[in-house]
């Protein structure tokens, strides 16, 4: 592996480092796009968290009237929608964007402007969805939007309009990112970075992209049909006109189940990076990890109807989907044993990222076990629509995805911002989160099995739910305190911590071979890879740590040129959909403006020059 900057002058700081608002609006740098995702995802994560706390306050005692039933419906719908589409998915995007190009030894993604387009569409889509609160019309039909709850007859207001159009906008963002990273991972790998040498995070991300590509068109169609029902009077999901509400459930879950893996696979990837580094051992069973990931994704498309056992599909369908679902426990178990095999006999360093990764394994196993329980239709009929299911999916999505993403945040923070987060505060965060999480969600298994239904705004006294619910509410606030500690940690280290070295954890992958934070072009010279843990290999060959990489001028490196057209093009989508929503009041003008902006943006995007080169040290342009 060669990363020495032959032919590049070493510098204290790079010239031409762009600053200011305009440089962010026009940025196409994958690292800055990642930071935009970070800002957006953090804001939406805290919004979703506040919604969760309001729900918990409402449920803290029986017969409570802190929020009424209508607002409660809006809160749980927006909590689910926000956490899935605006928090966990974009949090994964932070690491796709920042880390994948660094791990595969690339200077940027395959389509930098498409990448910028993706983040703008995500931010605008999130604002569009949340703007519904301003009109008192937040979506209120659940994150799954089951027909007929969403039909014009039962939901005449704008609640569902905001939901279906907002999700449509966010789908465009996900697809743009998926095409981009699929191509990036296939095509921009450094010489020698064969597929079976890619870091596990890149592998799991690659599989996630395939899932995004194949799952999102299905919900796009479902949302289009719903839109036709609501705006144009068709009867796709209206039984009175010959339609079938169950078709919605099929389309939604053909998307929705792969979506579950879209949420968890990136976290699988992250902890597969963290565990080896803090165990001082290579990942155990690399090939088995790759293929079990592929197998999970493949099976993920054949299990959607386990969300629908209670619709009465008959014994054959029930049997098929039940068996297919139980089968997923096998590749997932392979992964868990490999993670344990990785830490087995290692010299463990219990740093904060490692703690969260270990927490992930324990919590995810619990979520997985309750998942296998309701893979059985008779058990599922008992558990469906109760808090048992809420407990299950929070163990996999919070105990799994969020624990994994937080591990990634502590692990890569020094690479992204050049500051190591404080270990002591990190450990306090970990214990608050672990205790708060279990206090919140473990009792839900019990109240669920006792029959407490989901999505109901209150419960009567004396059913045996009171104490457990109180405990859950206390847990939720401890959980929130954990994240407050993390924010304080970021604020404190931002101001006082010394600059982080390039390789603070003695890492194995390429991102640790360049300065923290990396320069715009990442690698002054594209490295050559000869094995699975290229940096460990380089250190072994050298017989010790590598010298601290220096910042260089980057003179003559060709980089994608900044552009504001991705933002203009992205703006056309909320314009178009606002036009659609208002079409019955103001006529088709809004739609025309949206489409015109779309074409204007795309044509200017396509016909502008897209490359530039880093100017010389003394401002000399070099082509």
């Amino acid at each position, binding site marked *: 592996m060669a990363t020495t900057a032959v032919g590049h002058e070493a510098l204290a700081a790079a010239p031409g480092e762009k600053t200011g608002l305009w440089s962010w609006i026009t940025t196409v740098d994958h690292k800055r796009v990642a930071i935009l995702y970070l800002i957006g995802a953090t804001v939406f994560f805290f919004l979703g968290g506040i919604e969760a706390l309001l729900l918990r306050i409402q449920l803290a005692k029986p017969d409570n009237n802190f929020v009424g039933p209508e607002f409660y419906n809006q809160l749980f719908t927006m909590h689910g929608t926000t956490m899935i589409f605006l928090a966990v998915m974009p949090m994964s995007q932070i690491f796709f964007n920042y880390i994948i190009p660094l791990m595969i030894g690339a200077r940027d993604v395959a389509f930098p402007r498409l990448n910028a387009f993706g983040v703008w569409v995500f931010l605008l889509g999130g604002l569009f969805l949340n703007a519904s609160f301003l009109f008192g019309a937040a979506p209120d039909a659940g994150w799954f939007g089951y027909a007929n709850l969403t039909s014009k007859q039962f939901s005449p207001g704008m609640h569902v309009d905001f939901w279906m159009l907002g999700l449509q906008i966010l789908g465009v963002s996900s697809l743009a990112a998926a095409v981009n990273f699929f191509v990036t991972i296939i095509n921009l790998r450094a010489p020698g970075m064969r597929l079976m040498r890619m870091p596990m995070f890149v592998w799991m991300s690659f599989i996630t992209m395939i899932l995004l590509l194949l799952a999102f068109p299905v919900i796009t169609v479902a949302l289009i049909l719903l839109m036709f029902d609501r705006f144009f009077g068709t009867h*796709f999901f209206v039984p009175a006109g010959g339609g079938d509400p169950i078709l919605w459930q099929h389309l939604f879950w053909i998307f929705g189940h792969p979506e579950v893996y879209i949420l968890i696979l990136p976290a699988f990837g992250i902890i597969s990076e963290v565990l080896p580094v803090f165990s001082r051992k290579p990942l155990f069973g690399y090939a088995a990890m790759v293929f079990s990931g592929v197998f999970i994704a493949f099976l993920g498309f054949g299990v959607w109807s386990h969300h629908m056992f209670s619709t009465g599909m008959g014994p054959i369908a029930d049997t098929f989907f039940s068996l297919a679902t139980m089968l997923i426990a096998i590749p997932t178990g392979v992964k868990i044993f490999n993670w344990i095999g990785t830490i087995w006999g290692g010299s463990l360093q219990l740093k904060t990222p490692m703690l969260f990764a270990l927490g992930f394994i324990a919590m995810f196993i619990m979520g997985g076990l309750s998942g296998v329980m309701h893979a059985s239709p008779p058990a599922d009929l008992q558990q469906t629509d109760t808090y048992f299911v809420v407990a299950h999916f929070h163990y996999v999505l919070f105990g799994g995805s969020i624990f994994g993403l937080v591990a990634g945040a502590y692990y890569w923070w020094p690479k992204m911002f050049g500051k190591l987060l404080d270990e002591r505060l990190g450990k306090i965060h970990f214990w608050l989160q672990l205790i708060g999480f279990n206090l919140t969600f473990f009792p839900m298994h019990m109240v669920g099995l006792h029959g407490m239904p989901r999505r109901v705004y209150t419960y009567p006294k004396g059913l045996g739910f009171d104490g457990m619910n109180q405990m859950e509410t206390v847990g939720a606030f401890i959980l929130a305190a954990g994240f407050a500690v993390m924010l304080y940690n970021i604020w404190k280290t931002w101001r006082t911590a010394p600059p982080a070295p390039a390789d603070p954890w003695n890492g194995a992958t390429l991102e640790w071979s360049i300065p923290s934070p990396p320069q715009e072009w990442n690698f002054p010279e594209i490295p050559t890879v000869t094995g699975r843990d290229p940096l460990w290999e380089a250190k072994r060959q050298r017989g010790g740590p590598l010298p601290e990489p220096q910042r260089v001028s980057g003179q003559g490196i060709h980089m994608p040129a900044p552009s504001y057209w991705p933002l203009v093009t992205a703006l056309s989508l909320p314009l178009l959909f606002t036009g659609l929503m208002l079409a019955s009041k103001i006529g088709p003008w809004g739609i025309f403006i949206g489409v015109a902006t779309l074409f204007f943006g795309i044509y200017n995007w396509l016909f502008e020059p897209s490359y530039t080169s880093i100017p010389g040290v003394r401002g000399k342009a070099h082509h």
Partner: protein
Amino acid sequence: MTDIAHPLAAPNPHLETSTGLDSRKLAIWTFLGSECMFFASLISTYVVYRGKSLVGPFPHTPWTDPATGQVYEPIIEIPLVTVGTALLLFSSLFIVLALYGAQKGNRKMLLGWLGATIMCGVFFVGMQVYEFTHFVHKGLTLQRNMFGASFFTLTGFHGTHVTIGVIWLLTMFVLALRKQLPPENAINLEMAALYWHFVDVVWIIIFPVVYLMQ
């Protein structure tokens, strides 16, 4: 410096990528793979709702309105759509010839066959506009029954794809006219061609499912 330049920096067809494939071409293939699921969902919806209409007009059988006694004839007219289908199929050949012209630097061939492709596309969209209007006059609307809803949605989204393809090809045509489509940029046309073939293939599925299956 060229050996360390970003693969994308070289605006030539011999981009240095891990697979040797141009990233843009790979992106179009990826996008089309995703589109397969889009049309699969629409076609499935159509198939699920076949024969589920509560009232006529129906595609292949007559229907008498019990309230008024009015008879609705089977609404689908196969000859017209067959011509449209044939033109769309031929246009796939034409665009291959246009691409060959672009790659060989034969501008006459490029412009001629690209023009023919665009004409076919325009005729197909025109055929569809005529067909839709005709159906509406005969009483079939989006709202009328499940056939109307799923038919207009499926063929409408396909028609939208053809329209976008025509706009894309027109853009290429203007570029070719301005001599901005030299052989080293033929990939730009190749991407449009891949999309065009895909839209064509989708129609090959829609045509028998909607028009021929009774």
